């Protein structure tokens, strides 16, 4: 595939105003599915089930089967709508979205069309540079997920060129809330960062509500990014019309969202600048190359033949229920951020580092798991971010907050040095188990046996008599050479401070002996 021509980002911004729109699908973690009593694989209890084992007749679209709405999913959707500042419908219906696809058992998806459960909201989003945006929310509606296709044969992993395809209906019927923003204007050069920060905020919200596991790498949270460019009007001229949009699918990490929006801005700008036109289409994001490629052409004329789902009654949330759920809402993310910053005693810079890394939830959960705020921040924004960058993924997908808290405790207890702790994190990220398990398996614990250290120190002092003399003469800094040698001999598994103490002690006593 020919690589698309890209315009320099700054140049693109000079000529065009980027307009973005984001659709985020949130998989709810209810125990059962949206319309069936089958276990929900988006609930941690049912992870990793064999294909086609979490299914009821409804999920397979068996003749005669009927959907029944999961009340818990409705309550979660209302909570989410309220957290997004939305109005909650007094009555809303499900609708059938009709299209044929083998991962869609009934060949229609039960969704909501013109009557979403939540509508007209707004979310405060703070960018890395401190800018604060109000992102307008058009609607949040309930629907069911489709099954999962695995295309076998062919090079692309896509249906085209595949020899055959396997269908797993475990995911069919997983409860989804789709959150749709209105067109977001004014992001300008920050538009890519705004997209990222918005999705990160949505993730914070659903985690604080406890309604989703919100793991992007598992598809609990999925983002489609709409991007269009509008030519800048000359001074005094009326605004140019909005441009044609593309919808980039499959953008499943914070990092990718930012990159994908940036890429689309540059790609579209290059086409428009040459007098070309943008095709309204879905585009696929390729994590490896950082590019998008055309998918299915899409137009407003796509005809899903929506009609009200006759198998289900309208959902009529009582005002009492809505108020009850509103009263139970957790703190909004912005307020929460202000509170946490104060509680943790972080400087602006330190706190911004956490927020910008999309690590607020991780740090908070790590603190909740027992680590000090400083330690939690240090590991997440330091080593884990470096590791995530190197592996081109999000830090949260590598280890859990509980892992980090455990690691911090091991360092605190003196079992690990920072250097060893970094190795342990790598082990945890590689799936070798919990920090303690990695320590045990790799034998990474600090040698705290003074006898072993003293033996190594004595050997080092004996082999460097000049250093010994210097220490004895009061040139304490000379001890560094011995400490280095000892650490090397211990393969780093020693606490450098303790080694230093012992070196000085042995130097003194060795001197006395002489």
């Amino acid at each position, binding site marked *: 595939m020919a690589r698309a021509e890209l315009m320099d980002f700054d140049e693109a911004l000079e000529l065009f105003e980027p307009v973005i729109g984001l659709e985020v699908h949130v998989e709810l973690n209810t125990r059962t599915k949206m319309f069936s009593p089958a276990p929900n694989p988006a609930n941690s209890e049912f992870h990793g089930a064999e294909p086609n084992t979490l299914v009821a*007749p409804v999920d*397979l*679209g*068996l*003749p*005669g*089967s*009927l*959907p*029944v*709405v999961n009340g818990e999913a409705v309550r979660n959707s209302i909570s989410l709508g309220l957290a997004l500042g939305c109005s909650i419908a007094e009555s809303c219906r499900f609708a*059938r979205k*009709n299209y*044929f696809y*083998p991962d869609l*058992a*009934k*060949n*229609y998806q039960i969704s909501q069309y013109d009557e979403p459960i939540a509508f007209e909201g707004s979310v405060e989003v703070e960018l890395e540079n401190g800018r604060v945006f109000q992102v307008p929310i058009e609607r949040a509606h309930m629907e069911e997920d489709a099954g999962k296709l695995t295309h076998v044969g062919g090079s692309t992993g896509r*249906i085209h060129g595949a020899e055959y*395809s396997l*269908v797993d209906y475990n995911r069919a019927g997983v409860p989804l809330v789709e959150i749709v923003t209105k067109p977001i204007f004014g992001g300008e050069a920050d538009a890519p960062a705004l997209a990222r920060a918005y999705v990160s905020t949505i993730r914070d919200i659903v985690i604080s509500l406890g309604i989703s596991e919100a793991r992007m790498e598992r598809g609990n949270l999925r983002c489609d990014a709409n991007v269009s460019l509008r030519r800048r009007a000359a001074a005094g001229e009326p605004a140019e019309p909005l441009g044609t949009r593309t919808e980039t699918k499959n953008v499943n990490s914070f990092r990718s969202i930012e990159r994908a929006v940036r890429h689309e801005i540059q790609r579209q700008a290059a086409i428009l600048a040459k007098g070309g036109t943008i095709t309204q289409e879905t585009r696929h994001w390729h994590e490896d190359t950082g590019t998008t490629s055309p998918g299915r052409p899409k137009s407003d*004329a796509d*005809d899903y*033949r*929506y*009609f009200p789902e*006759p*198998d*289900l*009654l309208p959902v009529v949330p009582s005002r009492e229920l809505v108020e009850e759920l509103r009263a139970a809402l957790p703190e909004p993310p912005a307020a929460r951020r202000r509170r946490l910053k104060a509680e943790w005693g972080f400087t602006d810079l330190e706190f911004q580092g956490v927020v910008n890394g999309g690590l607020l939830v991780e740090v908070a959960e790590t603190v909740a798991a027992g680590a000090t705020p400083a330690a939690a921040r240090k590991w997440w924004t330091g080593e884990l971010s470096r590791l995530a960058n190197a592996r081109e993924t999000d830090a949260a997908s590598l280890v859990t907050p509980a892992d980090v808290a455990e690691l911090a405790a091991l360092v605190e207890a003196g079992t690990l040095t920072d250097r060893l702790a970094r190795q342990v994190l790598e082990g945890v990220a590689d799936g070798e188990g919990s920090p303690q398990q990695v320590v045990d398996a790799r034998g990474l614990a600090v040698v705290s046996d003074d006898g072993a250290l003293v033996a190594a120190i004595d050997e080092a002092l004996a082999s460097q008599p000049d250093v010994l003399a210097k220490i004895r003469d009061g040139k304490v800094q000379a001890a560094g050479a011995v400490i280095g040698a000892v650490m090397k001999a211990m393969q780093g598994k020693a606490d450098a401070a303790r080694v230093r103490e012992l070196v000085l002690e042995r130097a003194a006593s060795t001197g006395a002996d002489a």
Partner: protein
Amino acid sequence: MSEHLIRLTAAQLGERLASGDVSSVEATRAHLDRIAAVDGAVHAFLHVDGERALDTAADIDRRRAAGEELGPLAGVPIAIKDVLVTEGMPSTAGSRILEGWVPPYDATPVRRVREAGMVVLGKTNMDEFAMGSSTEHSAYGPTYNPWDLERIPGGSGGGSAASVAAFEAPVALGSDTGGSIRQPAHVTGTVGVKPTYGAVSRYGSIALASSLDQVGPVTRTVLDAALLQDVIAGHDPRDSTSIPEAWPSMADAVRRADVAGLRIGVVKELDSDGFQSGVRSRFHEALELLERGGAEIVEVSAPHFEYSIAAYYLILPAEASSNLAKFDSVRFGLRVTPEGGGTVEQVMGATREAGFGPEVKRRIILGTYALSAGYYDAYYGSAQKVRTLVQRDFDAAFAKVDVLATPTAPTTAFKLGEKLDDPLAMYLNDIATIPANLAGVPGISVPAGLAPEDGLPVGIQFLAPAREDARLYNVGGALERLLVEQWGGPLLDRAPDLSSHEMAAAEEGVV
């Protein structure tokens, strides 16, 4: 002995079983024998599972012998329309596309009849996916009317009605989307009830039009229908549209039947020249009888009923086009692979081409069109408005009367093939039955006699407000008693003897 057993009503058979003077195995075997004898000629059944039926019957006999308290229909055989899924028993809905599919679960009404101790004999023939009024659209060949084997038994539930009329089963289950229980009852001299929408769970009923479908009883007497409705009705958490409230006993309503003071409205728009003369004369004679029994007959108007068929033939195909989308060969049923293989899209296309009959394709195309962007408001949207107007007609009428009365269908049974090439003429069969489905109200068809001009059965339909099914059993039970008294016996006693066919069938070795 066996001839005698098959002619008992379900209520009578239930009593004989309870008294221990007949066993369920004997009753079941008598019906299986009858099926073996006459079904070659009638073709009411698509599938008979005699072995399993006899096992169930033996189990009921054992439980009864052990002193277990059993319901009034325990041990009574029943036939099930093939639209209802049955665990471990083929369920095709009369379509080639489901040939060979064996469902892993029972429809709720089937589960309820099993829990009531009833003995499932097998599955009855129907128009494919319940689309039709003659059972000629079954992919497995038509069913023949026991009154005249050259005529249709009505549809879509012609198999259930014929099985009961031919004494192959004492009772059966049907489903009624626009008249598929009541119109077959009308042309076979049997009783058919479409309960209030939501009275009987639709779970496991292969959907034709979800907002219109309703499962109900197909029987020879009003009391049997009431006993069966008492078994199958009631809330089912698996069907969101099923009514949560409890129901009064319909059987009690029949036993206490009394029309004194009952106000019966005659819908003037459905009492016209468009109805066969014998249908109208029997209808009016029945009303006179009820009037003599103390009922008050009032003329009412339902001005929007005339738009019912037009609205129905938009709503039904629209919902059906979506409901039938699941038949795509991916997970169950027929799979046709084009020569040399093909993409999943091509396999789906080839399967649906081969698996669906012409009437089903016609309605899928109609419905897909009616739901299309740009046409939705004009077609589906307008049809829903008509539906509201029909509901208002009912509301206005029921403000004046307790029940409505109409002839069930415009004509007596027509000949096979007569209307097959004229879909519009076929659709007009349902003119009197469709309004009830659009409004969700209950309806019953009760035998009213034979049309003088052709000697074929005629039914009278009563309609009641939603949730007032008991009123239908009251008026139907009362009329049946008056008519049977007048006739000196049940109407079906006058049906032709099928024993000549029994001979023919036996000679041909049909089982």
